């Protein structure tokens, strides 16, 4: 039984399909969520998620790193990022977060839940007002919970650029949140 992710990655690189299947299960939700937020389409997100891992399977033996866990995660996110960019290069869409998140529930909810949901919807609307690089950095950092370095790898930027974008994005968010 293989336990560590590093082993799974090494075995996958050597052609072990079952090990790769386990990696897929580990990252399925994260990559699906990442793509769904970018596309707003559940079926598209399912197809692209699978495609990300098909690409990863093909490319894995060619990677020449020691494949530590953190690198694998950002590497898969990077494939997803490139795939979405390629797929939507012609369409050039940005799906508003407010359209992606469920808006209401038919069943009555406790007041605290309703308040939380309203606050989240408000945050989504604030995020939607940010310029795209700012929005992307915030999503990568706080929604997908990638580190500064991972965000830099996924977006193809330097970590220092990510830090500056993060500061400007949060600063703008701060002002937008104060407006209300």
């Amino acid at each position, binding site marked *: 039984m293989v336990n560590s992710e590093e082993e799974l990655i090494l075995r996958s690189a050597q052609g072990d399909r079952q090990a790769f299947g386990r990696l897929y299960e580990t990252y399925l939700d994260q990559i699906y969520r990442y793509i769904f937020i970018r596309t707003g389409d559940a079926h598209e997100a399912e197809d692209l998620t699978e495609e990300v891992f098909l690409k990863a399977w093909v490319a894995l033996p060619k990677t020449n790193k020691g494949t530590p866990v953190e690198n694998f995660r950002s590497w898969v996110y990077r494939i997803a990022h490139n795939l979405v960019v390629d797929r939507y290069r012609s369409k050039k869409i940005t799906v508003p977060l407010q359209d992606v*998140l469920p808006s209401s529930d038919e069943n009555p909810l406790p007041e605290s839940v309703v308040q939380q949901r309203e606050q989240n919807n408000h945050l989504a609307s604030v995020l939607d007002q940010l310029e795209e690089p700012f929005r992307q950095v915030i999503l990568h950092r706080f929604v997908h919970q990638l580190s500064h370095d991972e965000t830099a790898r996924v977006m193809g930027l330097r970590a220092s650029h990510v830090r500056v974008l993060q500061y400007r994005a949060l600063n703008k968010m701060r002002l937008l949140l104060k407006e209300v």
Partner: protein
Amino acid sequence: MSDRIDKILSICLDAIERGEMTPEECLEKFPQQREELSDLLRAAGSMREFESHVSQAISPNPFFRQSARSRLLSRLPERKPVTFWERLRHIGQNRKLLPERRMTMVWILVVALAATVFGGGGVAYASTGSLPGDALYSVKNAMEEVQLWFNNDQADMQLQLQFAGLRLDEIQALMAHNRYGDVPEALSGFQNALDSFNKVSQKDAVSNFGEYEAQLGKLLGDRDRLVDRLRDMLDQDPAALPDQTKLQIRDMLKIMDQLHDRDYLDMEGSELELDQDQYQDQYQDQEQEQEQNQEQEQEQYQNQEQEQEQYQDQEHDQQQNEEQYQNQEQEQQQNQEQDQSQQTNSPDDSGQPESDGSQYYQPNSESGSGRN
């Protein structure tokens, strides 16, 4: 100030994410930035709460998830066997070598050493001064390739810059020997070296691009000086050059111009710029779409207004027509009454109305179709 606060902010966020510090401890550590930092951390904190909401709200369909693994595994293509050269390169770059790989590398080194000692070394050494077009130039290229096999990415970047410099030296040597026909091969090598440098620099492990900026700057400066020399040759004494050479120089200048357009000094920021351009394109497209939509909406609105006006006009016309028709009927009645009264006096008068009543309905029937 902002340059500093962005660093402080990321230090704090990193520490909070690692659980090494609380937001309050962070504010205490940076009292001068406390006010701004406090708001920024609050915004970041609200995003963390938002994350849990997103995680709950967005997840794959259970049916998809249930069969996802088996479906993916059934779609995984057969791996193409890794070639000997790919494996060799992989061995050289992997720092955590497995025992069997380590043994393979040892064998390769033994073979290479033997080749060097028993005759190969002389050839390899002789090839170092060869130029494109020389018999030993391919040996020189092969030796460079071997150097790349056994290095990590950082050393690869350094080597690629070194090779790019060598290609420029070769171009100068070829020009000195009037061997312009062989220059394109060296130029192509120069471009390949910089392309490889660019490729490696974008890999995960490499983050200290700045170290190479000075070297890149020098290389690009040397390249530009070569271009100037070639242009001078063509401009100052074209008659001294054979036609074939002039053609070759012009071809070379074209290639140089193409290279010049690709400013490798901006490589590191290029992806940012590309991404930003891409984002900007997105904004512009979106704005254009929005403008188009707005225009369409405005047109639709105007059309609706026009239609409404037309409709009102038509209704107005209809009313007028109806009034006219009523007047006409009244006139008809009056005429009939007059006729009846006149019949006694002039029995040959036809009693036709002055105008045909159907003309008042015609526009109405047209307008009726227009409204639809």
